[in-house]
């Protein structure tokens, strides 16, 4: 029988607590480092054709629900500024896309009862289709629209920029996300901070 890590045990009470706020902060800290070094190691700038930060956003919401969703839009504000990939106003405009990029995976894993350690074909399919492809399709669409509104790309280049953004980010996020889920999830689901619901 498939293991359902999201189901509450009999008598189990889960409430958001200080451990979640601490984990949110630490996760944001990791996101800042991953986002900053990812952008500096492969310096492509705001076009974001390689941004492993999306993997952090996806696994964050799978492990920590809405706390991961909050971290998903907070850490890019700082990491983009530190790495020089996007100025503050552009990063602020990315917030809705970053939130969706994070929460898509968290929502789908809870909705379809997938295991965070990617144990079955269904887990891989949901992670790839919703957590990576759908999330990045939306993120790239929103992101390129923001770039267009800020005059950083011409209207005629919108679709090409979208394709570059979507493909580059999807590959990086899929590889890093799969690694993190496969190797770290077994550890995370045994911790206090792991969220079976959205907040606890």
């Amino acid at each position, binding site marked *: 029988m498939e293991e359902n890590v999201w189901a509450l045990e009999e008598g189990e009470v889960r409430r958001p607590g200080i451990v979640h706020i601490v984990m949110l902060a630490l996760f944001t800290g990791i996101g*800042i480092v991953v986002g900053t070094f990812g952008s500096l190691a492969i310096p492509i700038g705001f076009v974001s054709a390689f941004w492993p930060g999306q993997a952090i956003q996806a696994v964050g919401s799978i492990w920590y629900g809405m706390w991961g969703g909050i971290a998903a839009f907070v850490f890019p504000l700082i990491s983009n500024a*530190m790495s*020089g990939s996007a100025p503050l106003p552009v990063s602020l405009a990315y917030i809705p896309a970053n939130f969706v990029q994070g929460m898509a995976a968290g929502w789908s894993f809870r909705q379809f009862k997938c295991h965070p350690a990617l144990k079955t074909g269904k887990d891989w399919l949901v992670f790839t289709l919703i957590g990576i492809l759908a999330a990045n399709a939306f993120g790239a669409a929103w992101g390129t629209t923001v770039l267009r509104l800020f005059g950083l790309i011409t209207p005629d280049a919108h679709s090409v920029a979208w394709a570059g953004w979507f493909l580059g980010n999807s590959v990086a996020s899929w590889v890093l996300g799969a690694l993190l889920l496969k190797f*770290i999830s077994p*550890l995370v689901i045994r911790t206090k901070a792991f969220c079976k619901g959205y907040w606890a």
Partner: protein
Amino acid sequence: MAQTTQPVRKMRRTLLGTIPVTSPLYQLHPATRFISLLFLGVVSMFIDLPEINIALLILILVYMRWARVDISGLRIYLPLMFTVAIFMFTVSIAFPGDDPTFHAFEFLGITLYLEPLYWTFASYWRLMAMLFGTIQYFSTNRERDTLVAVRALKVPFVVTYFLSLALRAAGMFMEDMRTIREAERARGLDESSMSLSDRAKLYAMYMIPLFTLAIRRADEISNALYARGYRPSGKVEGGGKRTDYILTKYKIRTLDIVLIVTQVIIFTVVGVLRIGFGVFAVTQSPLRQYLLTLMSG
């Protein structure tokens, strides 16, 4: 033989480097410096004129020099500056749009259009001014400074606590990351000779130890907070307000108030002029007008 000893230069570690403890910048309250992030990092959004944005960029570099930041540390941003320029200009040349009023000219056998190219030129400098407006803050301030700034601005306790821990965690993880990288270099790894795909693969390998450390730290920190009676509300048991020791160490002076008010006024005036009256639009750029005159003549 007489030996001369160099005086020890005490440095303070910021999020992006180090800065001398004697930097004149530390005469200012952290809140003033935080407002400078919001001012310098955002004001260029209302300014399309490359002349002003280049001047702002120079001003930021002068400000960093005055703050005794090691400007050579900014070299890490050079590849990014080049690739962004290449990307933006390539996109502008390949997809210029089809407005018949554009002024066309030939260069190396390629037909180029002045208006989209100039727009890209203006956008590039606007982007750089905003980027360096934010980089200056992270180059000159520690996590503690940001914490003091947001607390001085009366942001709720749970937000300030989260923000300070996140920034502190970023600092800790950067240190961990440096340790991992140095350990790899000590074993003979030469990142500079690696291809982009190899660098990306290597990068993925850093994540596992970082996450393992984070999970361990989350438990330690939350247990320590619980033991000290911390609550998300920031209140102590019984409902009283927790005393804020860190804020007592910093005083807002007249100079700080003057600088904060000046920045807020300039920001508001620039925003109103841009949104309400169309000032600072790219069409008003003297350089653009000069180039158009050259092409028309």
